[in-house]
Structure formats: C-alpha cells, structure tokens
C-alpha cells in the first residue's frame, strides 16, 4: 500500500513538471508561430483579442494588466522590496514628544505576501492570455467564427456557471483564510513576540529558531511541556469522541426502545443543551462545580463529603470532569445522529437473531455496533479532529488550569494545543510560538486524518455492508 501511494505521488510530481514543460513549450510555439497581434499580446495583454474584435475578453485582459501594474507601482512594490528584512527603520521619537511610525513589519510581510501571490495570479492570467491568442488563431485558421461577448456572458450563467457561483466564495476564502494562514506560517520563522511588536518595534526572520525552541528539552525549552499538552490533547480527543459516541448511542437505543412513551419529550430535553449557547451553560457549570460552588456546599451540608472535592484544582479530577461534562454537551448530538441510523437497520436482522436465541447485548455487539461503526466512520473521524481543537469546553471550564511549575509558558494540565495557542496569542502576544504551535496542530490533525481515513471500513470497502 505504501508503495502504491509513493508511486502515485511521484507520478503527480512528474505530471506537474511535464505540465510546466509543456506550458513553456506552448508559450514558445505560440510566439514563434503566431502573427504580430499575438506577439504584441505578449507585452500588451489582450491586444490580440481586441484586434480580432473580441472586445470583452481583450479589454478584460488589458484591464487586468493595467490594474496589476497600478497595484505594483502604487502599493505592492514598496512592501515587496522590504520582505527580506521586514523593515529596517523603527519608530522614532521626535523632539516635541510626538512619534513617527516608520516601517511596520507586520504590514510589510502581509502585503509582501499578497504581492507575491498577485504576481503569481498575474502570471497565470498572462498564460491564459497567450493561450487565448493561440486558440483564436487556430479557430480563425480553421475558418470557424469566434465567440461573441453575448455568448461569453451567457455562458457564465450556463456552462461556466461554476465560475459565477464560486468567484466570490473563492475570493473570500483566499483573502480571509488562505492569505492569513500563509502569513501565520511565515510568522513561525520570525521573532514576532511581545518584544518585537509593530508598529513600535520591528520583527525579522529568525529561521528555524522557534521550532528548535519547541523541541528543546532544556530548562528554557518548551519540549516537555509540548509533549505533555500533546499527550493530553490526544487522550482527550479519544475519550471525548468515543465515550460520547457510545453513551449517545445508548441513550438513543433507550429512547427508541419499543414501549417507551414520550419519545419526543426525551429528545427535546436533551437537545436543549445544543441550543443554549455554550458560554452560558458551560460557564454556569464551571461555577457549579467550583471549590466553593453549589455542588460542594450541598454535599458538605448533607454530610456526604467531609472536605471539598477539588473538581477543578486537582489535575486528574479536572480532566475527568472535563470529559464528563463534555458528555453532557456531546450526547445530544450523537443521540440525534444515531436515532435516525438505528431505525435504518432492518428489523428482520434482529428477528432472525432472536430466533437464534441471541441476547440483547449479543445483538448489539454483532448487528448494531458493526453497522453503526461502518456508517458513522467518517463522522467519528471528523468528531475526533474536531475534539482535538475543542476550544470551548476546555476554555470555558478550566481555562487550561491548573498550571504547574512543571509546565512552562502558561500551559496547564488541561490545556489542549489549541487553548495553549490561544493563551499565547491573546495573553502573551507570543505570536512566533503560537504560529509554530498552529503548524504542529495542523500536522497532528493531518496525520491522524490521513491514517485513520485509510483505515475506515467504509473507505476500504465501499460495498461492504450492502
């Protein structure tokens, strides 16, 4: 299996390079074989189409080039040229007590990256411009008519409707997801932290220093803390996913049981936890279980305990509490999902099992469970990766605490990687390490998703259960 994926990758890389080679060849051929209009189009985009009376396309190309040059001259270039240093002139204090802000490393990096990407997009558009010329020439040579502007526009509602539908969403994702992620990946290689904060101070490239820090196990390094947090993150995700899953299924089976009345009422009661915003319900639950909270004081009053239970201050107990309270949050979801699926299991499977003398548990083990696992495999995977990044439950309950001298950089025993990342970002403005941590979270999520996905029965054997 490993081999086949390897060769798959190789062939993809190969394809890419041969694609580039083919592209370069075609660009060359188009130039040598093309007429003068095509040749001019290499410099003035859209010249060819305009000359061939393809005004809409030609002007679009021309406008793209004009805008690109305008962007570069007016805006992009001044950031791009500093991207190697991320700025050299810091803020200065004037004699009259005012200040003048100069280079802003943050904006230099952000707009520098944007400019690089826009140059990339421009090259792509330029490539399309070349191909457009070639195609037009070919069509003309074959004596066929060129497309009209009206047809072009109509196609955007028909055969090219995907472009219309996707243009804005893709642009939105690019500006507000892709660009920030690339930016933050770059931050992992800089010293952007509390001591190097724009606009007052500059930050600059530091290579792999931050990664070394994360994996250094000396007294100042984050290595052991990182491993502790990572281990708990994985343990948490495992329990949070599977306990919720099985308990949720159990509740669903109970509600679905023949002869149980008020099915809708039970379901509605449970579903309320989904509807009530978590910051209300979880913050209240946190207060309830606090050392001086409702639960402890009633237990004391009734004489059930002699000393208060340290629900949140004992590391082990806090972890157990978080997992239990997550059940409170998670069971309703799984209950809803499994209810529908359980009804899909054909009754005659159970009937025949009953005739064979199977007990309720045996039936669950050999019929219900395999079916459910098969059908909900992908769901479990997304739940697992979701739990790896389950910020709300942890942060609203313990804020990652209790802390310990054994852990560094504000990490606590119940911190997940993502809550630790949050603390670094918001409390410490330690963006350099936060970025490294973010990359690690990505790696962990990606590896787990990839490995588990390939193990899923429903992926391995699509027809398996039918």
């Amino acid at each position: 299996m490993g081999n086949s994926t390897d060769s798959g990758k190789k062939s993809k890389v190969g394809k890419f390079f041969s694609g580039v080679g083919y592209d370069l060849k075609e660009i060359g051929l188009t130039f040598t074989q093309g007429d003068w209009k095509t040749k001019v189009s290499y410099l003035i985009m859209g010249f060819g189409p305009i000359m061939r009376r393809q005004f809409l396309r030609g002007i679009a190309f021309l406008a793209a080039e004009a805008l690109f040059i305008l962007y570069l001259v007016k805006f992009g270039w001044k950031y791009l040229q500093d991207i190697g240093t991320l700025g050299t002139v810091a803020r200065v204090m004037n004699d009259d007590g005012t200040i003048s802000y100069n280079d802003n490393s943050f904006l230099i990096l952000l707009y520098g990256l944007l400019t690089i990407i826009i140059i990339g997009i421009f090259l792509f558009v330029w490539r399309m411009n070349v191909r457009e010329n070639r195609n037009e020439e070919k069509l003309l040579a074959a004596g066929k008519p060129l497309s009209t502007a009206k047809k072009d526009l109509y196609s955007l509602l028909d055969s090219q409707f995907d472009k219309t539908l996707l243009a804005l969403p893709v642009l939105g994702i690019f500006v507000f997801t892709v660009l920030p992620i690339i930016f933050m990946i770059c931050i992992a290689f800089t010293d952007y932290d509390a001591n190097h904060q724009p606009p007052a101070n500059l930050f600059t490239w530091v290579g792999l220093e931050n990664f070394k820090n994360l994996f250094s196990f000396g007294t100042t390094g984050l290595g052991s803390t990182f491993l502790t947090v990572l281990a708990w993150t994985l343990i948490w995700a495992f329990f949070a996913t599977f306990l919720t899953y099985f308990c949720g299924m159990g509740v669903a089976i109970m509600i679905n049981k023949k002869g149980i009345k008020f099915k809708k009422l039970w379901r509605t009661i449970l579903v309320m936890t989904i509807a009530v915003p978590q910051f209300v319900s979880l913050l209240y639950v946190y207060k309830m279980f606090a050392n001086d909270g409702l639960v402890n004081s009633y237990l004391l009053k009734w004489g059930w305990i002699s000393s208060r239970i340290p629900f949140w201050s004992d590391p082990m107990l806090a972890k157990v509490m978080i997992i239990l309270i997550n059940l409170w949050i998670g069971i309703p979801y799984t209950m809803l999902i499994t209810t529908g699926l359980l009804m899909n299991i054909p009754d005659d499977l159970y009937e025949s099992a009953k005739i064979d003398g199977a007990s309720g548990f045996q039936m669950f083990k050999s019929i219900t469970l395999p079916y459910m696992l098969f059908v909900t495999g992908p769901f479990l995977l997304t739940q697992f990766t979701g739990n790896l990044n389950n910020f709300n439950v942890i942060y609203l309950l313990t804020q990652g605490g209790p802390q310990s001298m054994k852990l560094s950089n504000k990490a606590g025993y119940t911190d997940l990687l993502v809550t630790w990342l949050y603390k670094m970002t918001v409390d410490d403005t330690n963006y350099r390490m936060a970025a490294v941590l973010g990359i690690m979270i990505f790696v962990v999520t990606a590896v787990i998703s990839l490995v588990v996905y390939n193990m899923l029965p429903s992926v391995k054997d699509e027809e398996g259960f039918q």
Partner: protein
Amino acid sequence: MKKKVLATLLAAVMTAGCLAGCGGGDGAADAPAADAPAADDSAEAPAADDSAEAPADDAAAAEPVEYGSGNITIWVAENVVDFTKEQTDAFFAANPDMAGYTVTVEPVGEGDAAGNMLTDVEGGADMYGFAQDQITRLVSAGALAPLTGANAEFVTSQNDAGAASAAVVGDTTYAYPMTSDNGYFLYYDKSVVTDPSSLEKIVADCEAAGKNFYMEINSGWYQPAFFFATGCTLTYDTDSDGNFTACNIDYASDKGVVALKEIIELASSSAFQNGSSVDNGTNIGAIVDGTWDSGSAQAIFGENYACAKLPSFEGSDGNTYQMSGFGGFKLLGIKPQEDAGKLAVCHALAQYLTGADVQLARYNAVGWGPSNTTAQQDDAVKSDVALSALAEQLALTIPQGNYPGDYWTLATSLGDDVISKTLSTSSTDDELMTALQSFQDTCISYAQ
C-alpha cells in the same frame, strides 16, 4: 475553458481593487491628520493665547501649539466610566480652546486595557488606566508616551513618593498616578473572626463557623505576602526601554521554605478558598482583597463589616511573621501620539484627571484611594475604614516595582502546585527547596 479568463480576472481585479483602495484610504486618512493643525492656524489663533492660562500646560505654553480637533478615547474600569465622563466634560468646559476634541470613555478594565494596548497600539485608546505591574510591558511595546519637563515635574510634585516612583521605568516617567490603593488587606466578618491579627486564629474561626477564608495564593500579587513576610526579596531592575536587566531574588532559601510551608498549611485548611473577589466568593468569613471591593464587602457583611491589616502567622520555625505584600498604584497612561496638539491635550486632560480635586471626587464617588498628597489629607479619606486598614498594611509592604509578564504566570504555577497538592504538607524540605530553586532560576532567566 477559455472563459475562465473572466472569472479569474474578476477575482484578480477585485482583490487588487480592494487593496489598492484601502491602501490609498490609509494614506488619505493620514494626510488630513497631519495637515489639520496647520490648516486650523488662522481659525483658532486666539486659542494660542488661552493656552498659557490652561492650568497644567506649561510645556505647551513654551512652544504654542494649535490643538486641532479629533477624538480621544479613554479606557477605564467599568465603575468609573460615568465619573470619568463627567470629569472630562468639566475639563473641556473649563478649557474651551481644547474643545475641538471629543472624548469617548469606554469600560475596559485595567487588565484588558493593557492586553489590548499590547495587541494593537494604534487601535488602542489614547489614554488608559492600568495597574502598575503592566508598565514595563507597555513601555517595551511602545504603548506609553514618556513624560518630560513640566509633565514629569507634575507627577513628582503632586503625588506621594511611592506613586511617583511607580510611574518611572529606568529613569523616565511614563504615566500619571491615579490611585495609591493598589494593595490588599483583610476584610472580615466581625461575628466570625474574633482576632484578625493572627492567621491561624482567623482560619480556625472560619473553620469553626463553617465559613470560607479567601486568599488568592496562586496570584503573583498576593503570594509575596508570605515570602516578603519571612524576609525574602524579589525585585527586578529595568532600563528606560522597559528591558529587565537584573533580578534580585532569594526565594530558594530557608526563609523561602518557611513561607512556602505556610502557604501549604493555609491551603490545607478546609476553610481555605483560592480567590480574591468578594462577588465570586460564597459564604465568606474573611477575604484578602483590595479597596475596589469595599462596596461589595460592605453589602455582604452588613453590620459585621470590618477591615484590618493582614495578620501575622507563626512559621514552621517557631517565629512569628507579619504578612507583607505589594503596595501598588493605578496609573493613567497616554499612548504615543503622532500629532503634537493631541498629545498636549492628552497631557492636560491626564493631569486634570489625576489632579487633587478629581482624585478626591473619585474617592467620594467610588472609594478609590488617592495618590495625590493634597487629596490624601482630606478628612473623609483619612477616616475611611478600608483605606486606613490599607494604609496600615502598606506600611508593611514593599512598593511594587516592575515585573516581567512571565513572573505572574510562574507565580500562578507555583500556587497551583500548592492547591493541587503537588506540593503538600507531606512534601519534604528538600522538595520544597527544589521547587523554590526552580522558581528562582526561572525568575532570573527573565532578566537578560
């Protein structure tokens, strides 16, 4: 396939358009701000003469500036928002030459204000209240405008010595002291606690009455009450840029072990609760807290409301130690400004808001203890129960200097280790010493 041109083009054009647009927008926004004072020259000419009369504007008077116009944002704690609004209105009524400015007062607590300023100086408030312990972080992030000449003079001449020194980093003054009540002492219920002078007795009383004794031992602010009591030190030296140059600490010593043992002892009591907020506490018998909670404490204790300096405790070595701690100050800072006129207005307003009259008015409105020496002499201030307890306690504390942000985290970790029983009554002296040694080493590592 060809028409993918259009889609991509659309995307490219829009992106470029947006960004070029907003880039241009920024430039345009900057330009008028820079031009404004010049353009207003003629219109506000008479204002220049008035500025000499403005109470605290000596610096500006030497070199007359046009104040221009704009908006000044002020971040203060929630309970003084209305008060601050009234006072700024009064300020602008008294200084019509500065009336080109409007003021927005927002409730952003001291902790959040500092955090926000560190995140984005440009987006932050022009003036903001913060607790003294944040000053170095704010200086090194470039979020505080230095005070020079007459402005710095104002701080030293008007405030008590401790408050004035709290506003200094290295040898530069960076903020205006607003209160000198940022310390803690004991609030207690007279019907529960019979003798507030001994920690053991307070705890025993609370245990007997089934009440809680609150102290936030996992906070770097309250924790030193024990360590300083036994004679430990923890201070940092800083330079003018807010960098920490040296750490003076001797927690890893016999004195430190005695203090840590006392913390552990306290935490092992069934009456002990970790916390320092009257409102988040329940069933309170006594609480170590500051003046900002005096209203809530009065509401909760009713006629049994009482205050005292912190108690003393009997250490494991048999000696009796008086609990100490930090005495700190709340400061009003000004963000570095690009516009000289606005900067002058900010300074004048800050001096007004931290002047004797307003500090006294603030005390009367919300009970904050003044740092201004004149206001401190007021009879009402002198006779305030909470403030006198605080004053008694402050005599026993060390003025809080500058501490790196990481120190507070580290102190929380040490406290959490005690609360979670990682360090417990069964820990040996060696274990405690190891923990303190690691604490000390880490503290030292924060200073370069």
